[in-house]
């Protein structure tokens, strides 16, 4: 079966065609202001150059930064109401309490607390009050808001109360776009609620982007289903992605690390992904990105997503180089590289120009950088190597030599060695992230507290396993390939009935129609 992987970055949009484990063809094109123009261009190029007939494509996997950018830049976010069920508990910290002021304002500060929610053992804190919820829904409706996030205390144990609240809200606002916190995630009310609110605010954009991708694929003659990659390196179907756009956040670094592992065949390494504006450095363990150990913030909002442990530095092919004193980045010409860099006839000196002047790369017109002082060029090259070596050093676990896999369009900036570590540039290194997207699998996850006094541990684990697998299948996995990849059971201190938090993740290959 043939897969197409697409990576939409801030600078470049890449497309790769893969047949089983082989890269057939790839292209790299500048990301366009309208984004979809670039996606269509990449698709047309990769199909045209390879001569592949669009009908032969079985699936398209897309990694995109659209949603991360929307949150970080506070753009295209819909006004969103947050309803939390938990009164009289939780008043001390209402929804969005720890959000940056500007992001909270971007969503409109429509914050509501209502009765409902559960104790750890499933007892209700207080009964749901339909009248109270109806009033809240009417208030939301009067404000013209239709994006709503609903959270309830301990809803991962029992999601029913959120479902019931959504039903009441829909009675008042029939076209409401509702995200339930129990659909997104884990124990930890604020973090789970934050993710639900962000997701609700991204719904309109999610709808728009999924439509646009769908259109771009159709325009390229592709009728195969398409998928978006999530932060854990697995896929979600277009329908699912439209409902849960927030799960795409930080999928970029994960894709490039998974792609680097796949292309190089190396499972323990440091991965350096040099893009147009930034370089991401992460560590591969058993072929998967090492996860960050601390709470991860997205646009200043705490979430409990499991994100790869990545160190980003402001160095890429488009980084602006200043002379006297020498300074490289973090400012970048981004996707205007092919207009603004010296070697492309522009007037801004970039890291790419330095690499060309130093003979490390052949792009654009080398004549245009011949006049640069060789001493200055050497100093700038040295500075870039040092910046990358420092970042790699931060990610090292031990002084033992470990390979450094260099990928990404800006890899021309890196010499044969980083510090004293050998570098590897695998075949097709410029499009490792599109490859990572193309090889991605499908996952399902469960995170819940079980009272092991009421249910034997084995039975609870079995139930969680079954449900995780079912979620993977619902997300589009082939049932015959789904397997459990992570089981974590953490006994909870001080709780009666041997309360245990069980988290299970299942992963399987993409099911093809």
């Amino acid at each position, binding site marked *: 079966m043939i897969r197409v992987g697409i990576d939409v970055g801030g600078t470049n949009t890449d497309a790769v065609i893969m047949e089983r484990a082989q890269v057939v063809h790839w292209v790299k094109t500048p990301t366009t202001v309208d984004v979809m123009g670039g996606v269509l261009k990449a698709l047309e190029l990769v199909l045209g150059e390879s001569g592949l007939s669009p009908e032969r494509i079985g699936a398209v996997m897309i990694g995109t930064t659209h949603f991360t950018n929307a949150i970080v830049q506070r753009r295209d976010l819909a006004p969103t109401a947050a309803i939390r069920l938990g009164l009289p508990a939780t008043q001390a910290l209402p929804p969005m309490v720890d959000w940056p002021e500007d992001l909270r304002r971007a969503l409109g500060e429509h914050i509501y607390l209502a009765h409902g*929610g559960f104790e750890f053992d499933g007892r209700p804190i207080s009964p749901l009050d339909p009248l109270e919820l109806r009033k809240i829904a009417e208030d939301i409706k009067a404000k013209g808001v239709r994006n709503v996030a609903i959270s309830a205390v301990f809803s991962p144990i029992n999601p029913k109360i959120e479902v019931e609240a959504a039903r009441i809200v829909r009675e008042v606002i029939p076209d409401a776009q509702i995200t339930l916190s129990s659909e997104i995630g884990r124990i930890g009310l604020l973090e789970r609620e934050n993710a639900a609110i962000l997701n609700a605010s991204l719904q309109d954009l999610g709808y728009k982007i999924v439509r646009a991708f769908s259109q771009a694929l159709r325009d390229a003659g592709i009728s195969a289903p398409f998928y978006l990659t999530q932060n854990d390196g697995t896929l979600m179907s277009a329908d699912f992605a439209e409902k849960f756009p927030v799960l795409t956040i930080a999928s970029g670094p994960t894709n490039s690390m998974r792609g680097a592992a796949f292309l190089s065949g190396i499972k323990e390494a440091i991965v350096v992904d040099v893009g147009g504006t930034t370089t991401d450095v992460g560590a591969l363990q058993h072929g998967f990105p090492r996860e960050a150990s601390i709470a991860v913030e997205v646009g200043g909002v705490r979430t409990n997503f499991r994100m790869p442990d990545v160190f980003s530095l402001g160095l890429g092919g488009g980084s602006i180089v200043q002379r006297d004193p020498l300074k490289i980045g973090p400012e970048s010409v981004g996707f205007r590289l092919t207009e603004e860099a010296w070697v492309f006839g522009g007037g801004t000196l970039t890291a790419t120009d330095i690499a060309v002047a130093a003979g490390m790369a052949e792009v654009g017109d080398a004549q245009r950088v011949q006049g640069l002082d060789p001493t200055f060029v050497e100093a700038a090259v040295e500075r870039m190597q040092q910046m990358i070596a420092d970042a790699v050093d931060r990610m090292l676990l031990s*002084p033992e030599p470990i390979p450094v896999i260099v990928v990404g369009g800006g890899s021309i900036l890196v010499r044969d060695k980083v510090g004293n570590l050998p570098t590897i540039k695998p075949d097709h290194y410029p499009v490792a992230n599109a490859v990572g997207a193309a090889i991605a699998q499908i996952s399902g996850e469960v995170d819940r507290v079980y009272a092991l006094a009421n249910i034997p541990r084995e039975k609870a684990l079995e139930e969680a396993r079954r449900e995780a697998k079912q979620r993977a299948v619902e997300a589009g996995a082939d049932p015959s390939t789904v397997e459990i990849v992570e089981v974590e059971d953490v006994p909870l201190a001080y709780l009666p009935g041997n309360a245990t938090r069980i988290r299970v993740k299942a992963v399987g290959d993409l099911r093809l129609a």
Partner: protein
Amino acid sequence: LRRTWKLNDADLDALTIGAAILGTGGGGNPYLGKLRARALLRQGYAVRILPFDALEDDDVVVSVGGIGAPVVGIEKIEKGDECYRAMRALEAYTRCRATALIPAEVGGSNSIEPLIAAAYANLPVVDADGMGRAFPEVQMCTYFIYGARPYPAALADEKGNTVILGKVQDMYWLEKLARTVAVDMGAAAGFTLPPMRGEEVRRTAVPHTLTQALGLGRAVLEARARRKNPIERVLEVAKGVLLFAGKVVNVQRRIEKGFARGQVRIEGVEGFKGSSLVLEIQNENLIARRDGEVVATVPDLITVLDLETAEPITTETVRYGFRVAVLGLPAHPRLKTPRALEVVGPRAFGYDLDYRPLEGRV
């Protein structure tokens, strides 16, 4: 006016980090408490600290804190006045007014709870506590170890229930009964210990621990800002020892009698290459064995920090692959007397080990 000083917004960040370091892996996450205290400061409430040596003999000091389970704390966030109402209930029962509050436990989230109750009550918080770290149970408070009466005490939940424990046989019964009530309240409640006289606090408390937590947190924040090594700074400030640096390779957990017990195995990096360290955990980190040899035991503080950022890592969140530094910080002398060791020494936690001070091991 009393000789007090005010805690500001920036202090809260430092205090949270310091309290988590003193939490030795347990004590609950102080992040939510910090947000609550910050919200109060912004509403104009004041959090005032009373220096330990400014305590007067006839001060009436009440210790407050949360009792429950850490995982409930991050899910069923407090209504906000649980500790305050427990304190008022106890005042009404005893017919005496508190003149100052004090933490029962400086390690973890219970460093912040008294600050919040004190802001509501407009009372200062004494710069001291009853543990100098985190411990799993209330009888491990130095107040009781050194003879403070363990009753009456009070609990309050978010629903409006308050419960007075009018008379208990000893500090172990106080723990047992309070725990049962707290679980029925949903495993999260405000808990107020019996009022103590200022003179009694001076005799029994672990002094200067709020300022110690602040100092540790400030050291970490400053080191991060100046791109210095924050772990070295923590060791300097706490006069501690670097027990180990390495990568977590195995975590085993089980529940025994309500406690999360387990072992964390760490393989050495840098100067500890080739060695391994095993931590025995029971909510907190209790014993550290390096290559089979015991290098630190409770009540000395064994604290696990992220190797780079010095972010404290709890026993509930530690996972395979984390890169960590394991630090030993000497416990306060009041935790190391024969009387204290009976309650908080290795044998009190079921380990067949004699306590040997950290200082003597190095």
